[in-house]
């Protein structure tokens, strides 16, 4: 897990980490931190929700739908609150965005 804290801007000068549960529909985001415990973390990782990867919010609310690794995943808000994301543009994380992903970026 990289040492990125939302309150430590010197590590991430431009981006602020936010919980995934509060992101709007259409947001394309980068995962910076997982705060879920062991089992839940393993389930998230196995589906592609892991630090450094990108995801896209397809439906907000509880539960929400995200697209990650080319497939849709339903996620309860409680678990989404443990996934910290920032809005680093796709180019900065040296990964191409999904062609069909909405390009709107979250504020």
């Amino acid at each position, binding site marked *: *897990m*990289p040492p990125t804290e939302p309150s430590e801007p010197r590590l991430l000068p431009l981006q602020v980490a936010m919980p995934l549960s509060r992101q709007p529909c259409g947001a394309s985001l980068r995962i910076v931190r997982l705060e879920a415990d062991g*089992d*839940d973390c*393993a*389930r*998230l*990782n*196995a*589906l*592609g929700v*892991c*630090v*450094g*990867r990108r995801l896209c919010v*397809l*439906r907000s*609310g*509880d*539960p929400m*739908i995200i697209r990650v*690794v*080319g*497939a*849709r*995943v*339903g*996620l*309860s808000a*409680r*678990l989404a609150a443990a996934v910290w994301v920032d809005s680093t543009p796709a180019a900065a994380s040296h*990964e*191409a965005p*999904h*062609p*069909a992903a909405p390009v709107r970026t979250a504020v």
Partner: protein
Amino acid sequence: MSVALDHVELPVVAAATDAPRSTERRGPVTIALVGNPNAGKTSLFNRLTGLRAKTANFPGTTVEHRRAAIAIDQLSVTLIDLPGLYSLEPSTPDELVACQAISGQLAGEAPPDLVLLVLDSTNLERNLFLASQVVELHRPTVAALNFSDVAQREGLAVDVDELARWLGCPVVAVSARTGQGMDQLLAAVDATVHEQIRPRLHPELAACGSCGGCRHSARFAWAERARSASVRGDVHAHGHLTEALDRVLTHRWAGLGCFALVMAATFMVIFWAATFPMDLIDRLFATAGDLVSRWLPEGDLNSLLTHGVIGGVGGMLVFLPQICLLFFVLALLEDSGYMARAAFVMDRLMHRVGLPGKAFVPLLSAHACAIPAIMSTRVIEDRRDRLATIMVIPLMTCSARIPVYAMVTALLLPDAPLKAAALFSGAYALGIAAALAMAWLFKRTLLKGPIRPLVIELPNYRLPSLRNALLLTFDRAMAFVKTAGTTILAISLVLWLLANYPKTSPDELPPGVHARLQQLSAAGDEAGARHLLEQVSLENSFAGQIGRAVQPLFAPLGFDWKMSVGVLTSFAAREVIVSTTAILYGLGAEGADDGVDSLLDSLRGAARADGTPVFTTATGLSLLVFYVLAMQCLPTQAVTRRESGSWKWPLIQLGYMTLLAYAAALVTYQAARLLT
């Protein structure tokens, strides 16, 4: 829960240097099918094996899988369909067993000679994550690129050779649905297992484990590169339709509405379509019983065969059409990808009682029959959640309760159809409320644990495969007949013994009965005389004696000794209470079939020793509440035993439901007596 697989993450060995097994070997080899859920693993398994598959548990576990012995060319093969996996780091018992089986760590199960990786061409990137972990195990591996026909239709071109280079193992494009590519797949399997060819790790994959940061992230990055190098075309083409459908089907309110419609349609189909085969089975067994009773001389053997064996087995098999239809429709829904959406939209509501969204469909299915419902809880990953669901499923009103409800409502409210309908619905509501309350209680006591938050892949919608659904239905139906059939047969025989012995010889009849018998015979009422004799015989049998012995126990519920006997004889199958009361109140066994009217008349006329009527409103309500909540179904218990892996859970189920039924009936009777 983590299995020690991490040590295999970094095998930089690229070539098969292990001493190869004898190349002459044509003996039985084991091939394990490994793949993501929804990758079409089961379709491929069915395509390769057809009806030869058997369902079995892995030794020492309740995890089920299917295996089959087939022949590929000259090679005899045991094919094993492992539970679906997203990665080799398991988080459920099923995944753990699958991981152990692949790596040969499962006691009593030899490691597979070949791993057959099943990949979904339309969702390759996600599938390649597991694939990368599997090839690192360094076992002979062949990848089957499934749904290649769908990919082609969607304009996706997969470069099989390029993908084989990334995976380091043979890759064959197949379609389990059409059978396309099967010959090439079998040839590749034959060659790989024959030569014991092990995967050559891609250099980037070999480096994957050693780089810093999140090792999953590096692996997903590898999967993304492998996918973009080997697939041409819009990888999301297949998702457009799914996205459009999901806009409605996963909508907060519209999704719930659609789900209600789908379930209503499912139940209408089940209840309507099942009546025809059910009538047929009923008639078949009636005819069989008739033939046997005519061919065999009257006596114990005749009665044993007609009432004990044919009656008992027929009573169980009559529900088979409903069970099969339910399995069939649920399999179609699962295969289409809709079930994941159902779990998704129900998750928030189900959390209130501490159960996951996936528990909803099993609970709803229990309104047809608890047995398929209990078997369909396999989709619930968490063992505690699954057990809690299994424990409360029998509280839902299944079809076997309907005759009992019908009898009591007709008895209490003969001329008030509206009130009768309300009482009927009330009985359903009581079952649902009790189930939800008990689930809540179980999740806070015996099965205490955190509620597992929802993470579920919402796969692309697909046209479901009839062939798969039929095979699954056949499989489950056989499992039901085997599990429940043997138990039911044994219990039917015991109950028959209890109800028929000791015999009442005509000389032992009390003088009053003798006189009435003679009166009836003189009046030419042969049926009446026979019914009286049946009634007296049952009264004097072990069942009758036990019923009278336990009657004080049921007296606070308002049950007379005849109803107590009914409770005992319906222990294995609740609907038996109707025929038992019919016999005990002097109508004969066929009294229940003659139309409920004659039974109701005699029940209404029944009086206690002191002359007060037996069936007051209070007694009727108490009987209804008892049958809503009591277990009274042995096949369900047998299936609970099978699914939970021990007798502990069916016993707890029986215990709590009986206590609950008793307490609730007691409160109902006493309260109703005070109020009326």
